[in-house]
């Protein structure tokens, strides 16, 4: 088994809500007990609806946010308590690509300045050749070094964002919805770039997305989040072909089929996602689940192997049966 790059152990992140002092303090449980391991060379897709805690989890993993509880291990060392200056060497191992390439580039800095920021943060003055190499790695020409972000298209800006993340030569890139702000035609280009970089540089990814098609294209493993917890996790092909958790099944049934005339059995979920301030007892999904029974309200189900397969796990009392073996 290859090296663990990132290991999240029972990570929780609650955001305090400010209210009147006489009211009971409330907290938004954005991430509520997540275990996740990313190994070298692997691409893990993290999918879920808006508000499921994907982006928060990504920020906890990159140590932009402190976890309320739990452990964050990067490259085998516990970095939960590491702060400030001592975080710098750790930042070199794990980097983040942001969702909105417009907002993630400083409008008053030229591309050259943006790309040299990571070097300067580490106390290094980059040479022009180093910056040009970074640009070329993401398919941009040297002449763009003096330009400013507003002179670029969305796809080009995201390439610059990726180049910035690559500058410190990380092992792991956490991409927070890297293509959701881009046109569909440009999405594919950026995803291909990410795939090429993985092969070239031996990178690993955590790919946060709400678009299942995007994840399917590049991920080896998939983790499905719902209301701050992972409800199903497993090899991408298996999760797609044989989803075990009812929520995953419902999500996949909503993906349109690019085949005219083919009707798919859609599972339409009713109701809204419950508020993360006061999540349901037991299974967080039980309020919308078509299989829910009394036991679901008692205790939160834990991730358990599906049909004896330890790689594929789901947190459900009544997992979908695996499809019959084709003969």
């Amino acid at each position, binding site marked *: 088994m290859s090296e663990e790059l990132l290991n999240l152990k029972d990570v929780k992140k609650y955001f305090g809500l400010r209210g009147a002092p006489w009211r009971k303090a409330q907290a938004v449980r954005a991430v509520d007990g997540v275990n996740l391991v990313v190994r070298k060379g692997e691409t893990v897709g993290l999918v879920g609806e808006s508000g499921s805690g994907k982006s928060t989890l990504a*920020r906890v993993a*990159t140590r*932009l946010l402190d976890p309320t509880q739990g452990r964050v291990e990067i490259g085998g060392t516990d970095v939960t308590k590491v702060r*400030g*200056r001592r*975080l*710098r060497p750790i*930042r*070199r191992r794990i*980097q*983040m690509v*942001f*969702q*909105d390439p417009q*907002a*993630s*580039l*400083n*409008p*008053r*800095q*030229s591309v*050259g*300045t943006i790309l040299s*920021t*990571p070097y*300067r*943060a*580490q106390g290094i003055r980059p040479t*022009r050749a180093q910056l040009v190499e970074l640009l070329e790695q993401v398919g941009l020409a*040297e*002449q*763009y070094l*003096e*330009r*400013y972000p*507003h*002179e670029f298209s969305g796809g080009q800006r995201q390439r610059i*964002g990726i180049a*910035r*993340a690559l*500058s*410190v030569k990380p092992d792991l890139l956490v991409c927070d919805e890297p293509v959701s702000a881009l046109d569909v035609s440009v999405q594919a280009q950026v995803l291909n770039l990410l795939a090429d970089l993985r092969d070239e540089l031996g990178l690993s990814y955590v790919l946060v997305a709400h678009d299942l098609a995007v994840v399917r294209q590049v991920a080896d493993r998939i983790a499905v989040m719902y209301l701050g917890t992972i409800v199903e996790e497993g090899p991408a092909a298996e999760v797609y072909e044989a989803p075990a958790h009812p929520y995953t099944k419902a999500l996949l049934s909503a993906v349109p089929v690019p085949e005219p005339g083919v009707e798919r059995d859609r599972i339409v979920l009713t109701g809204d996602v419950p508020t993360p301030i006061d999540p349901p007892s037991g299974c967080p999904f039980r309020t919308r689940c078509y299989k829910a029974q009394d036991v679901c309200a008692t205790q939160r189900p834990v991730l358990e192997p599906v049909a004896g397969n330890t790689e594929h796990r789901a947190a459900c009392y009544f997992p979908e049966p695996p499809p019959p073996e084709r003969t």
Partner: protein
Amino acid sequence: MSSSVAGTVSPTRQALRRVRRDRSARVGAVLVVLLIVIAAAAPLLVRLAGQDATTYHIDLLDPNRGNAPAGALGGISGSHWFGVEPLTGRDLFSIVVLGLRTSLTIAVVVTAITTVVGTLAGISAAYFGGWYDAIMSRLLDFLFGFPQLVFMIALGIIIPARFPRWLLLILVLSFFGWAGLARLIRNQARSLVTREFVEAARSVGSSGWMVITRELLPNLLGPVLVIATLAIPGYIGAEAALSFLGVGVPPPTPSLGRSISDSIAWVYTGADPWFLLFPGAVLFLAVLGFTLLGDGVRDAFDVRLRRTS
């Protein structure tokens, strides 16, 4: 670093280019430069005129008209370009240019202090947040609610005369002056801090100082520059007002505000309205020049009015 791409300019340089194209801003800039040169060269100009601001010329006064300057136009002559002061006969040109020097120096120094302090306080409050921001914000509220003018007048009376007045003026004006800029910058910076490029800078390991100076400050340059240029005429006026009220720069140091204050009675009686004209006109031009320039800078940097991309 030579640019291989023609026409690539930073947003800041674009804004400055817009200032240069704005006609009223150009007028303001010319006025400002002219007045600064005059103020800087004031002792030289006074010597060139062969005068000084302290020598009494009783012989140039008309005792029959209550010691108003003898002759027309407030006693303007080849040796006294702006005429002479009534009652004392001191050279008005020397008093006006040296007074301008006093006013501009105080205004510029106070603006420099308040700009630096206000910007740093505002950015740091926004960046660090938490209790630091809470304390800073309450302090700003306190400074805003404080009856500044009454306090300044009281202070001017209490502080012993041994303490240099110009320094007192600078300290008091600075003490109250930074609050406005700090609050504005804090609010602007708070919206910047949540932007992803600040997170991106943090995620590559930039220190707080680097984030403040390299990520936030360049984005706040516009508002800082605008407020600074518009603050200068305000402080010129404030210094003049305090001197007018008698708690500013004490005699014999020339001050535009005190000259204007002294001239009121002579304008009332009609004995020597020229005494008001020259210091009043110079004060007006100084305020006008900085205001025009400041307006131009604001228009050029105001992203809400203009968005080229």
